[in-house]
Every structure is written in C-alpha cells, then in structure tokens.
C-alpha cells in the first residue's frame, strides 16, 4: 500500500490530502467553521437537499424514540407516530399501496400507504420503526471509528519522531495495513458471523472494519499539516503542544473528517443492512430494512414488489441524503475543486486571492 500523502506529487493523493483548505489561513475560531459550512450548504441545491433529508430523518427518529416514553410519563398514554404495531397481524393481507395500481384513486386511501405483507403487517410501520435503528447504528459506528482511528492516526502522524514515537507509529500503521487488506464487507460479514450473529457482534464488526480508514486519513492529513510553516512557528513562539494540537491540527482535521464521516454514515448503514440481509445482524421480529428485503424477496410474490421496494426506498433515501451532503461538502471543501467551484458560482462572499498558496501548491 502506498502512503497517499507526502511522498507523491499532489495530484496522486486522494481527494482529502491536498493542502489544508483556505479556512486555516484566515485563522478564525471554531465559529467560522460553522459559518463556512452554512455557506457551503446554501451554494449547491443538491447539498441542501441532502442536508434537509438528513435533518428530517434525525428529527423523525428522535421523535420515534422520545415521544412514546415522554407521553407515557406526562399524559399516562404512550402516543407514537407509527400508525400500526410493526409486528401487529391483521386480516388485510397483501394489500397493495394505493399508489401501486393505475389509475390512482383520489382521494388516495391512506390506511396502508406502503401496503401490507402476507401476514397483514403494515409495511409503512415496519419501515418507519427501523429508521432509528439503522440511523443510530450508522452514526454510532462512524463516530466510534473516527474516535479510535482518528486518535491512532493523530498519534502515528504527529508524534512519529524519536525511537519510541517511530516504533509506535510503525506498529499502528502496520496493523492498519493488515486491516485495510481485507475487503470491507468480507471483514464485517466474517466478524459478525463468528462473533455471535447478533446486534452487538455486528456493531463490533462494523467498527473493526471502519477504524483503519480513519487512521490513514488522519495520519495523512497530520503529516501535511505538521510541515506547514505555522506549526514550527507556533512552537518557537512557545505555544504549548496541547494547544498546537487543538488549535492547529484538530481544527484543520475537522473539515476532511466531517466529509468522510458524513459519507461513511451512509456506507455503514448499507453494510449493516447487508449483514442484516444475510440474516446475522438482527432477530426476525425486529424490523430492519435489509432483513425485510431478504425476507420479502424470499417469499417470491412477483406481483407484490412493494414489499421489497418500500424498505429499499427507505435505505436508498437515507443513504442518498448522507451521500448528497457529504459529496457536496467535499466538493466545496476540497481546495482543488474549490477554485473551479468559486469561479463558477462567482461567490461574492469569499473571493479567492489570485496568488493563493493553494494555487502555488497544486502547480508545483
């Protein structure tokens, strides 16, 4: 495996490893990061769509989780936005959703908007019920991987001098290389399968699959940041090591990590649902998108395609939200496309200086 960053010309390196974005040059505080992100969102309609989708899904799953216990406590009756019991069986078996058949009926019958399955369970309730589980796992695993992998990457990148530092750094990178040699899905599947074929095993498996990517990303970024002039300058000025890491290193890591984490939440959800699809992540009574697709396509009802499409659409929309958001963020935060982007949109808010160090760096 090739270390993506310093040894090669800047065009080789994966998207993240260009010079740090111009944000750093302005030297503002953390609040400026927020401002910049909001400006980013407004600049591309698709990114905004992704952002709104993500916010909407998070709000819906928060309501799903919080509303029943809260109303139970306050009103002595648990209200929920799920229209039916996701495991409740009714006599209305294999009811097609109203939008399924042509011509559409008006006003549409909203009783089962995604139809029901062969046991009369409401598909919409099942799909909705699975949202907090999938979303939560996506976010939890990604954050945990960022923390573990990012921490190790920081250690391997920033403190790699001296015999001890070099030794530790080498060990971390060799172990990372070994983990990266596994194709991600194979590692996740195999770990989930041997660690017990349940939710906890799947969580461990997913985290074990994702952390090495962050070691790579963070170490690469840190190696670039470390050799920028302002780090030695800060050292000479007597700034403490902790402050350098916090103010200069972590601050510059925030952007690439945000982009990768946003994209990864989607990938983690896809991988999690794939493990569930295989049938080793969740028990059958817990609705989960992947296991629903596996179960319903196994029934072989060729005309009842909504059974597969509804959970498929749910996972598609969720992952698309994170992908749109992450992809848009990356486009604007990546200094290489950023220049082209700034020229296109003729953003009046932040005109690029003609002789930015970025231009110099990428033309070397």
């Amino acid at each position: 495996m090739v270390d993506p960053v310093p040894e090669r010309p800047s065009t080789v390196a994966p998207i993240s490893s260009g010079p740090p974005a111009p944000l750093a040059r302005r030297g503002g505080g953390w609040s400026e990061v927020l401002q910049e992100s909001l400006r980013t969102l407004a600049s591309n309609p698709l990114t905004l769509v992704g952002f709104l989708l993500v916010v909407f899904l998070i709000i819906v799953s928060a309501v799903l989780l919080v509303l029943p216990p809260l109303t139970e406590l306050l009103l002595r009756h648990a209200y929920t936005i799920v229209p039916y019991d996701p495991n409740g069986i009714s006599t209305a078996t294999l009811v097609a959703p109203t939008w399924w058949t042509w011509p559409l009926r008006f006003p549409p019958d909203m009783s089962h908007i995604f139809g029901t399955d062969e046991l009369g369970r409401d598909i919409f309730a099942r799909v909705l019920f699975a949202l907090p589980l999938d979303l939560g796992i996506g976010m939890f695993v990604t954050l945990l991987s960022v923390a573990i992998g990012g921490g190790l990457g920081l250690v391997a990148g920033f403190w790699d001098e001296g015999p001890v530092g070099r030794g530790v750094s080498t060990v971390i990178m060799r172990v990372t290389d070994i983990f990266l040699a596994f194709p991600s899905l194979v590692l996740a599947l195999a770990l989930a399968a041997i660690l017990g074929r349940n939710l906890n095993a799947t969580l461990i498996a997913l985290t074990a699959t994702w952390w090495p990517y962050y070691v790579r990303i963070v170490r690469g970024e840190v190696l670039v940041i470390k050799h920028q002039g302002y780090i030695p300058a800060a050292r000479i000025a007597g700034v403490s090591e902790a402050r350098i890491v916090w103010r200069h290193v972590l601050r510059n890591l925030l952007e690439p990590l945000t982009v990768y984490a946003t994209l990864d939440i989607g990938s983690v959800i896809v991988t999690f649902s794939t493990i569930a699809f295989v049938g080793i992540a969740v028990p059958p009574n817990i609705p989960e998108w992947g296991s629903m697709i596996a179960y319903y396509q196994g029934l072989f009802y060729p005309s009842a395609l909504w059974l597969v499409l509804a959970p498929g659409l749910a996972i598609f929309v969720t992952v698309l939200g994170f992908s749109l958001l992450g992809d848009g963020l990356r486009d604007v935060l990546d200094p290489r496309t950023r220049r082209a982007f700034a020229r296109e949109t003729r953003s009046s808010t932040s005109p690029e200086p003609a002789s930015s160090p970025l231009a110099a760096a990428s033309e070397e």
Partner: protein
Amino acid sequence: MGRSLGDLVFFVGRRLLELIPVLLGVVVLTFLFTHIAVPDPCPAWYPHAKPPVIAACRTFFGFGQPLYVQFEKYIVGLLQGNWGIDQSGAQVFPLIAAGIPETLELVLASLAIMIVFGIALGVIAAQYSGRWPDHLIRVFYLSGWAAPTYLAAILLAIVVGPTFGFPTGGVYSVNPPFPQPTHMSILDAMLAGNPTFTVDAIAHLILPATALAFLNLGIITRMTRTSMLEILPMDFVKGSRMKGLSESRVLYRHVLRNSLITTTTVLGFTASGLLSSTVVVEEIFRWPGIGKYSFDAIVNYNFSGTIGVVIVFAIAVVFANLIADILYGVLDPRVEWR
C-alpha cells in the same frame, strides 16, 4: 530513483516484499478471530448430531488441541500448499482456485462497463458543471452509491431480468457438453467453438456485471469530473484555445487525457469495493466465483475456506493497487518509481 526499467522492477519487487508481512498478518488475524470466537464449530456444522458424533468431529478436525498447536499445523500446511479442508472434508484450495477466474470474468466485464459509462458521464458533468446535466449525473451516480448492493442486484434479478428476458442465475442455462479448462464461461464456450453457449454465457454475464458496475460507477464519474474541473482553468488549456484548437479537441485531447491520470489511480482504490460487492452479487445471481464461495464459507463457519478467500482477496487488492500505480507512472511522466 528515476524512471528506468530497473527502477520499475525494484519498485514492483519492493511492493511484493511488503505484501508478505501484510499477508502473514491477515492469516494470523483471521485464524485467531475465527478460532478464538468459535473454538468448536462442530455443533454448528452438525446441529442434530448426537454427542459421540460431535466428539468424533472434534477429534477429526483437531479442535480440542491447544490453539498454538492448531495454528502451527495450519501454517505449516499453508506453506506447503495445503490450504486446509472444509466441514465436509474437501480440500479448500481447488474450490477457491476454480472460483477465481469466474470472479475475474465478472469483475473485468463490470470494469469495462464502469470505464465506458463512468468516463462519458464524468466528461458531460464537467462540461456542464453547475448546470442541470451535472446535477442529474450526480443524482444518478450517487444513487448507485446509495443503493445497497443487494437491493440493486435483487431488482435486476427479479424485475429487469424477467421483463427483458435475461437469465438471472448461474453461468450457463444448461450444463455445457464441453470441458471448462479456464473456468471463464465465455472463454470456455469460445474455446469449445460453441456459438450458442457463447451467447448464452454473455447473456448470463450482463445482469451481474451491470449490478456490480452500477454500484461503483460513481467513483469513476466523480474522479473524471473533479480532475477535469481541476485542469480546465489551467494555463495550457487557455493556451490551446488561443491557438485556435476546436473546443472538442481541447476537451478530449488535452483536458480529458490529463484528467484520466487521476481516474486511473482511483480505479485501483475501487478494487476493494468491487471485490466486496462480488460477495453479495455472486450470491444473488448464483455466480460460482470466490464471492459466492466466501459468502458460503463465512455463513457455514468454514474456517479454512474463510482464511483462504481472505488471502486471495488481500492479494487481489494489493495487485490492483500495484497495477494502478504502474499505470499511473506510465501515464504521468513526472512520476518517479520509488
């Protein structure tokens, strides 16, 4: 360090040497994971067997022995070319070796689809960047990214296949009357000089290859678009326009050619994702490659099979990256081998 052939040989040799510790690590990790987490898979292999049968199974496979003894036995066997046996007692290596060309055929077909469509879409997106074709293409490739492998594959298998009359399982419709020396369905049929089976094999390849390509198309499209956008504002592009070259010539001969350098490198990165996807795609389309084999091995606690498949996958990923790096160096004269 320079660009001579000797430098290249040295570069490749060093990369292959670096592969050895990684592979050793992969084998050790997989062995430990599997054997510590499931010290005794016999009850899972024979769920309804009586205790004496389980005990016999345990003795036969040596699961009662201490871990280091089992590991020593396995690693000595591996070095001698014996990759172990699966739960039915069959040698693992011939099964894996037969699956490799099948998967290679599938992956090459989907790579071809990816390159043709991905680069075309990337060029269009860059040409119209910020306008609606760009947004449309972005939604298209991100939907490939967002759709889980199994969903796209299942929809292709249960909707597209029956509707358009494509076969959705296996490599041939009926067992072929000819031997299959290469284990690549199209090549075997062509070697046997059998046009009916050749067409049949191509028809069987289309849907799984499309499923694989659709999911990974986005990376190519994205990289082509990004690197074209990066090159478009450069001075030499302005220069060639000022010289009076036609816009299409500037775009295809100068900009695209330079941006393909980056796209090539990224192809190497997609190898890992492509191989991961084969696990699910091959299982759904019953394609007899190593993806399907690894799926079965993982689900059935076939440890020797799992380790063997992981070794093959790890080698494949390293080789794909190596080939991408070599191509990159060939395309970009500034790169030095080191």
